[in-house]
């Protein structure tokens, strides 16, 4: 356990030393500011409320979790695996006195930490900006709703990340892995639209999973979607680790 913790901290440090993670967070901030400008534009342009204080962070989350976050999570996940192979630093990592499973896990932990941090930054900022520039009022209940929506979003994003990790281990080349991830992602989005009644089979339809937890929660739907995420995570994790373990230096 101690080994895993140390390895994870090490991975996280290395991740944030790279520019990608910082760029991701900066772009997220720009997205929030643009979102707010659009909302203000709508309000003054067509007189529609569009989003009030309590809604703005959720509006940002919707866009963020459906497009921006998966993109950066994929970039970071690929970098953490395929990047190591291409830069030949994987040798150093593998030769450390730590089992491959723990090494693999520590990388996953680092990705999860990145997702969590990114969500946290976006949540704080969008709430702050939303409070400053939007009408309506925000109560403790609203705050609770926002926090839980952001936290719940970790699940689907992490499932997507695990699938990307599987692809990154399948293609040793980072560019190929990223290309494949993008194709799969867009393909899923299209299929989801074309075959609406089968959309549960496409993990991308669950990125805005938080929205199922507002209003009348349908236990059936939430449970099913959770199971699908669990199943995809299990398959992607075991598949990804199998490939990672098999790798020869």
């Amino acid at each position: 356990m101690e080994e895993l913790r140390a390895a994870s901290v090490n991975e996280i440090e290395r991740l944030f030393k790279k520019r990608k993670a910082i760029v991701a967070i900066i772009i997220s901030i720009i997205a929030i500011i643009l979102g707010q400008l659009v909302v203000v534009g709508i309000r003054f342009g067509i007189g529609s409320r569009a989003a009030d204080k309590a809604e703005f962070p959720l509006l940002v989350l919707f866009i963020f979790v459906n497009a921006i976050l998966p993109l950066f999570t994929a970039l970071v996940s690929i970098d953490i695996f395929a990047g190591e192979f291409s830069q030949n630093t994987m040798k150093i990592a593998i030769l450390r006195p730590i089992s491959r499973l723990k090494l693999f896990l520590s990388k996953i932990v680092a990705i999860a930490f990145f997702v969590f941090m990114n969500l946290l930054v976006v949540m704080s900022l969008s709430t702050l900006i939303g409070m400053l520039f939007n009408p309506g009022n925000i109560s403790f209940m609203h705050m609770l709703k926002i926090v839980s929506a952001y936290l719940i979003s970790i699940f689907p994003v992490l499932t997507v990340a695990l699938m990307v990790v599987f692809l990154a281990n399948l293609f040793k080349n980072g560019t190929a892995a990223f290309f494949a991830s993008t194709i799969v992602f867009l393909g899923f989005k299209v299929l989801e639209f074309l075959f609406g009644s089968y959309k549960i089979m496409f993990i991308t339809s669950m990125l805005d999973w938080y929205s199922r937890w507002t209003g009348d929660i349908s236990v059936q739907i939430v449970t099913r979607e959770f199971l699908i995420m669990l199943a995809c995570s299990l398959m992607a994790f075991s598949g990804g680790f199998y490939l990672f373990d098999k790798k020869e230096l």
Partner: protein
Amino acid sequence: MGRNKRFLMAFCFCLGLIIFVSTAFADITNKSGYDQLKDSIKYTFKSMDKHLSSYTITTSTSIKDNGKLIMSSEEVKKQSRTANEEHNTYLYGNTQKQSYYYYNDKEISVSYDSSNDTYYIYENSGDYAKVEIDPFEDSLTNELEKLFDLFIGNLKDCIIYEKREDGSKKFSGFVDEGQIPAIINAVTSFEFRKEISSRTYEKSDVKYPNLKDDVYIKKLRGTATTNKNGLIEDVAAACTITGKDFDGINHDLSAEITIKVNNINSTRVVKPDLAGKKVEKTNNKENQVSNITEKFEGMYKNDIVIQNDGKYEKIGERIVELARLDDTNFKGSYTEEYVSGYEDYFISKETFDFDATLIDSSASAKYTYIDSTGSEKTGYINFDTVNGKIFFSNNGSRYKDLSFDNNFSRVFE
């Protein structure tokens, strides 16, 4: 790789696969309330067009502003295999009442005008075709349906249903302000604002408020009941939209609608008894295409106008004269005349006589003429039977710096 580890990985993978397949299967075989409701709607439309011999639809709506009634309506539509009728009453504000009545079968159509208490009767051709109302017959609707599905997104999950013992279903949905995605809110409230701003000038004692800003959907709720065959019998929906007007006063506009389908296969549409009523027989001769050659005999003019130093100036006119030959033929002439001082514009002035023949029974005619170079050309005349003007085309303008349109007005002596 150790054997144990490999087994564990394989086990994890298979477990994932099993969970995935079984859950996906469960979800796909279990239709959501939203999909079932859509199926019921489609089935209802289809039945009305194809299977039911008769039915009655009663629709009532009301729109209130902060609890004050702006308008309410009651519409009763009856449809059988051989006839249909409508009784509609509208109340605007507290005083303005309007009612309409309409009946239609293979022999006659009757419509009632409440303003002068008169029944107008039109003769029909003797065969009656039921009007198809099913929008899903059209492939465009199915595309729109997909877009709509995408647009409302996860609001679909708000529709729940219960199945009763006799096989009938009850659907219900309730959406609160926080649940409506911002994009839907923005689009809907924008459309809504456009819609009511055009109604703020209506002449009733209670008007629609002119909402300026902070418009959003406050709540939506709806219920629908189907009978055991899946036919929708009852729909009730209510929606509240709120916003501020130009004085900053807050308005809650609430709209309610109920639709009932009843007397299925037992509706009788009865021909109205017009004995002792004020009746006017009309035929559509007024707007019919007839006596054109007689009506349109005369002279028509079209001014040629240019812009000179930021002012418009008339530099000439084009004149068409029509003379009747018989019911379908005209004899005519076309000339161009200039105002003195503008001769330079009319280097290739055109003047010709022509013979025009009406095309079938339409309000247009085709003519042939010999142009200035000696070759035969054709042109068209369209007759505006409402305003008594003509539209005379002869290959447009032949002058590079002149343009004229083809609307000729009658010159009345």
